[in-house]
C-alpha cells in the first residue's frame, strides 16, 4: 500500500518530478557513457598488449630480461616447445631470437630490437600478421630469397622510408573523405613535391591552413599523403655471437600498424633463420619462448605449471612482465567508482531539495494522515519510497539510454583522430569502442538506491517532527 501510494504521489506534481528524473537520467547517462569510453580504451589496450606485444607467458634464460645479452641463450628449445604444447591450456608457442641493433637507411639510423621469429608459429601466437597496413605488402615470407623484415609504420616514418607527397590521387581520395574543395585547393601548389618526412611535410604545409582546418583535416591529409614504395630496403647492424659487428640488407615485407608508438618504432621482426645465420647461433637456441594461452583467465595456473617444468629458466606471465597492465583494471574500477560517486552526490542536492518541498507542501495532508492513525514508521517509509522511486526511475531511464547509445557506438567506435599521436604514445588506440560490463549497472543501481535513501533522510525526519495538531492548522 505504501509503495503504491508513494508511486502515485510522484505523479501529483509531474513537472517537478520530471525535472528530478531528467537530472538523474542525464547524470547517469553521462557517467555511464564516460565510464564506457574509459573501459573500452582500457580493454583495447589490454587486448592489443596481449595479442600483439607480449602474449601471455614468456620463458627466458635467467638474466636475459635485465640486459638482452646475446649470450644469455636457452638450449634445445625444440624439445621445450613440444613439451609446452602438450599442456591443455596452451594455444601456441613460438621461439624467438632477440638482438639489439641499429636500423639504417641512407639518411637515418636508429636503435631497434631485432626479433627473429618462426613465421608459421608466430601467426598462431600473435595477431601482428593481421595488422599489416594496407598497400604495404604482407607478413614475413619464408620462401623469399632475400632477407625480409616486418617493421612498424612509426619506424618507417623515422627512417624516412615513408615519405610524403601530394598527388592527384591524394586529392581525389581526400575529396572522397569529405574534405572540402577550399582545403584541397590549398594543397594543389604542393603537388608532386616529395617531402622526406612528416616533420618536413608539416613544416611546409602548416602555414597554409588555418588552425581550425589543421585540427579538422590535418590528420587526414597526413595519412593520405604517405607515399611508400613496396619492397623498400634498409640495413640492420648488430653484434654477432663472437662479438664482431655484422648485419645485412633486408627487404621490407610489410609495415605493421598498431596503436603503440614505442613498440612500433623499436621492434623489427625478421625470419629466425636469417637472424640465426647472421648472428651465428645454432638450431634450437632461442632467447625467448612466447606462449599464448587459450584463455587469459588460466594465466596464473598455466604459468606456474610451466615454471615448474623449467626450474632453471625464468618464466613470467603478463601480469609480472607489465604490472601496470595488471593494475589497470583495478585502478579503472576505483576511478569509475569515484566518478559515479561525485555525480550522484551532485544529484543528491537536487533530490533533497525536491523531497523537502514535497514534505513542506504536504504538511496539512501528512498531519491529517497522522491524525487519523497512520504511524510514524509508515510516514517515514512513504517519504523514503518516494525518494527511491524518483531516483531509481531516473536512473533506469539513464541506464537504458546509455545501454542503447553504447551498443550503437560500440560497433563503429568513436575516433579521436586529432589526438592520435598522444594516445598512441601511451599505447592506447585513438579509435575507442565503448564497452561496459553488466556488473557496472548492478553497482550503479545499488548506488542510486542508496543515494535516494540518503537524500530522503533529512526531509523524512522533518516530516516525523510534524505535530499533527499544528500541521492540520496550516493552510
Amino acid at each position, binding site marked *: 500500500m505504501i509503495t503504491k501510494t508513494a508511486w502515485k504521489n510522484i505523479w501529483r*506534481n509531474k*513537472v*517537478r518530478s520530471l*525535472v*528530478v528524473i*531528467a*537530472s538523474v537520467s*542525464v*547524470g547517469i547517462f*553521462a*557517467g555511464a557513457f*564516460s565510464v564506457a569510453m574509459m573501459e573500452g580504451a582500457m580493454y583495447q589496450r589490454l587486448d592489443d598488449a596481449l595479442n600483439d606485444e607480449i602474449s601471455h607467458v614468456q620463458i627466458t634464460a635467467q638474466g636475459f630480461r*635485465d*640486459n*638482452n*645479452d*646475446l*649470450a644469455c641463450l636457452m638450449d634445445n628449445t625444440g624439445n621445450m616447445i613440444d613439451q609446452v604444447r602438450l599442456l591443455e591450456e596452451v594455444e601456441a608457442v613460438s621461439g624467438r631470437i632477440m638482438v*639489439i*641493433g*641499429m636500423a639504417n637507411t641512407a*639518411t*637515418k*639510423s*636508429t*636503435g*631497434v630490437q631485432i626479433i627473429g621469429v618462426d613465421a608459421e608459429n608466430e601467426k598462431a601466437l600473435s595477431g601482428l600478421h593481421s595488422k599489416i597496413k594496407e598497400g604495404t605488402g604482407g607478413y614475413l615470407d619464408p620462401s623469399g630469397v632475400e632477407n625480409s623484415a616486418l617493421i612498424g609504420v612509426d619506424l618507417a616514418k623515422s627512417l*624516412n622510408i615513408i615519405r610524403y607527397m601530394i598527388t592527384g590521387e591524394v586529392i581525389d581520395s581526400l575529396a572522397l573523405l569529405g574534405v572540402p574543395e577550399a582545403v584541397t585547393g590549398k594543397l594543389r601548389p604542393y603537388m608532386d613535391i616529395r617531402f*622526406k*618526412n612528416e*616533420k*618536413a611535410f608539416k*613544416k611546409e604545409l602548416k602555414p597554409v591552413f588555418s588552425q581550425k582546418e589543421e585540427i579538422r583535416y590535418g590528420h587526414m591529409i597526413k595519412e593520405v599523403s604517405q607515399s611508400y614504395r613496396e619492397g623498400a630496403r634498409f640495413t640492420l647492424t*648488430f*653484434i654477432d655471437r663472437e*662479438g664482431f659487428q655484422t648485419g645485412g640488407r633486408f627487404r621490407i615485407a610489410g609495415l605493421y600498424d598498431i596503436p603503440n*608508438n614505442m613498440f612500433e618504432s623499436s621492434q623489427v621482426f625478421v625470419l629466425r633463420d636469417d637472424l640465426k645465420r647472421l648472428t651465428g647461433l645454432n638450431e634450437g637456441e632461442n632467447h625467448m619462448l612466447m606462449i599464448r594461452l587459450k584463455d587469459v583467465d588460466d594465466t596464473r595456473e598455466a604459468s606456474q605449471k610451466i615454471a615448474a617444468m623449467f626450474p632453471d629458466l625464468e618464466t613470467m606471465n603478463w601480469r609480472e612482465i*607489465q*604490472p*601496470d597492465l595488471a593494475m589497470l583494471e583495478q585502478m579503472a574500477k576505483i576511478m569509475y567508482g569515484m*566518478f559515479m560517486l*561525485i*555525480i550522484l*552526490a*551532485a*544529484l543528491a*542536492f*537536487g533530490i*533533497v*531539495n*525536491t523531497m*523537502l*518541498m514535497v514534505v513542506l507542501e504536504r504538511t496539512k495532508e501528512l498531519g491529517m494522515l497522522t491524525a487519523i492513525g497512520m504511524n510514524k514508521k509508515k510516514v517515514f517509509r512513504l517519504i523514503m519510497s518516494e525518494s527511491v522511486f524518483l531516483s531509481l526511475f531516473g536512473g533506469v531511464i539513464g541506464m537504458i539510454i546509455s545501454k542503447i547509445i553504447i551498443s550503437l557506438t560500440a560497433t563503429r567506435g568513436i575516433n*579521436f583522430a586529432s*589526438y*592520435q*599521436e*598522444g594516445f598512441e*604514445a*601511451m599505447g592506447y588506440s585513438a579509435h575507442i569502442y565503448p564497452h561496459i560490463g553488466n556488473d557496472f549497472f548492478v553497482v550503479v543501481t545499488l548506488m542510486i538506491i542508496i543515494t535516494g535513501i540518503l537524500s530522503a533522510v533529512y526531509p523524512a525526519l522533518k516530516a516525523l517532527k510534524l505535530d499533527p495538531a499544528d500541521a492540520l492548522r496550516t493552510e
Partner: protein
Amino acid sequence: MKNYKYAWRNLWRNKRRTAITAASVFFAVYFALVMRSMQLGTYDYMFKSIVESYSGYMQIQNDQFWEDKIVDNAMEFSREIESTLLSDRNVVETIPRFESFALASSGSRTKGVMVLGIEPGKEKHLSDVEAKLVKYQLSDSAIEKLLEEDIPESVKENLELFRGDLYSGDGRIQLDLGIRDKDADRIMQFIRKHASMENGYISLGEPGALVGGRLAKYLGLSRGDSIVLIGQGYHGITAAAIYEIKGIVNIGTPDIDSRIIYLPVDICQELYSAPGMLTSLVLHLESNDDKSIDETLERIGAGLADPYRLLGWKEMNETIVSQMDADNKGGMIMIGILYLVIAFGVFGTVLMMTAERRREFGVLISIGMQKSKMATVMIYEMIFMGLLGIAAGVAAALPTIIYGYYHPIKFSSDMAKMFEDYGFEPVMAFKWIDNYFLWQSVVVAIIVLVAALYPVRNIFSLKEVNALKA
C-alpha cells in the same frame, strides 16, 4: 526599496531551500576548482620536469636539424650570434648542446643511446645534471644489509618493491620507502651507511661520461667502467671512442633515463669530428610563463637569419602536448557533466520557488507592482544564490589549493611504482589561482541566468485572477 534588497530578503524567507541550492553550487564549484587545479598543476609540473631536464623552453637550431636530426645538420656557432641572443632582455644565458645518436656497448651488451654534449658549468641553469648524480642505490647487497637493521616492517617491504632503484636526493627515497618524518633521521643513517654511492662530474676538456641510471643498469655499468660509443660523425666519418664513466645520473623521466649519455661538449664535438659546431643552443630565460615565452619567441625569431631556426617548447614536445590536450578535454567533460547535473538541481529549485509564490506574485501585481520590477527581483535572487554558492566554493577551495600548491601530493610505495611504470613522475601538483577560477563563475552565471528564464517568463504571462486563486 531597492530591487536587490527585496531579492536578498526573499532569499531568507525559505532559508533551507536557499542553503541547499547554494550548497549544490558550492559542491560543484569546489570539486571543479580542485580538480582543475590538480589537473593543470600536474601538467605544468610534468612539462617543467620534461622541458627543464631536456629540451629547455627555447632552442636555436640549424633550419634542417629538427626535421632530420643528424650530425650533418649541425650549425656553426659563433660569438656574434651568442652576443645578439644575450642582448635580448629575457635571455639570461645560452647553453650549448651537441646531440646525437650512437650505439653504446659494454661487453656483449649493446644499446642505441642519445649522446648529449653539454657544457657542465652552464648546464646548471637548465637540467642541472650535477644535482641528478646518484646518491643512493638500493642494490642487492645494500638491501640485504638494510634488512638486518632495526627499521619498520613496512619500510622493509617497500625495499623489495624498489630493489635496484637509484636516488639522487633524500626526499624521494623517503617517500618511496614510506619512511615517516619522525623516523627519517634514524633510518636515513642506515641508508647512508649501506646504500650510498660516490659519483664524480664531468668537465670541459676531460674525456669522461655520465650515464643515465636505467641505461647503466641495462649495460651492467658502474662508475670507473668503460663504455664504447659508435656512431656516424660529420660528413659520414665514423665516430668511435671509449670513455670512462665518471658518474651515474638519475633522470626522472624514464624514457630519457634509459638512453642518455652526457659528455662534455668539446669532447663530443671531437667524437663526431665537428669541432666548433653545435646541434642546438638552448636559451635560458629570465621568466618562463607562457606570455613572456611567446613574446621572446617573436622578438628573437624576427631577428634570426636564414640557416638558423628558433623552436619553442611546444613545438619540441608535440607528443606530450597532444597527450595533455586529450587528457585536458577529458577533465573538462567530467566537469561539464558535474555542472549539467547541478544545473538540473538549480532548475528544480527555481521551479518550486515559482510554483510556491504564484499567489504572492498575483497579489503583488494586482496591487500595482510592475511585472518588469518583479522579474528583476527574481533575477537578482537567482544571481545572489549563485554568488553565494561560488563564494562558498571558492572560499573552501582556496585553502585546499594553496596548501596543495606548497605541498604537492607525492605518491609513495605501490602508487609511485605504477606512475613510474607509465613513465611519469609520481607527483600531483596544484596550479596557483588563475583563469580557471574565473571560468567557474562564468559557468555558474550561465546556469543561473538560464534557470531564471523560467520564472521571468512565468511572471510576464501571469494572469492575476488565476494566480490569486492558486
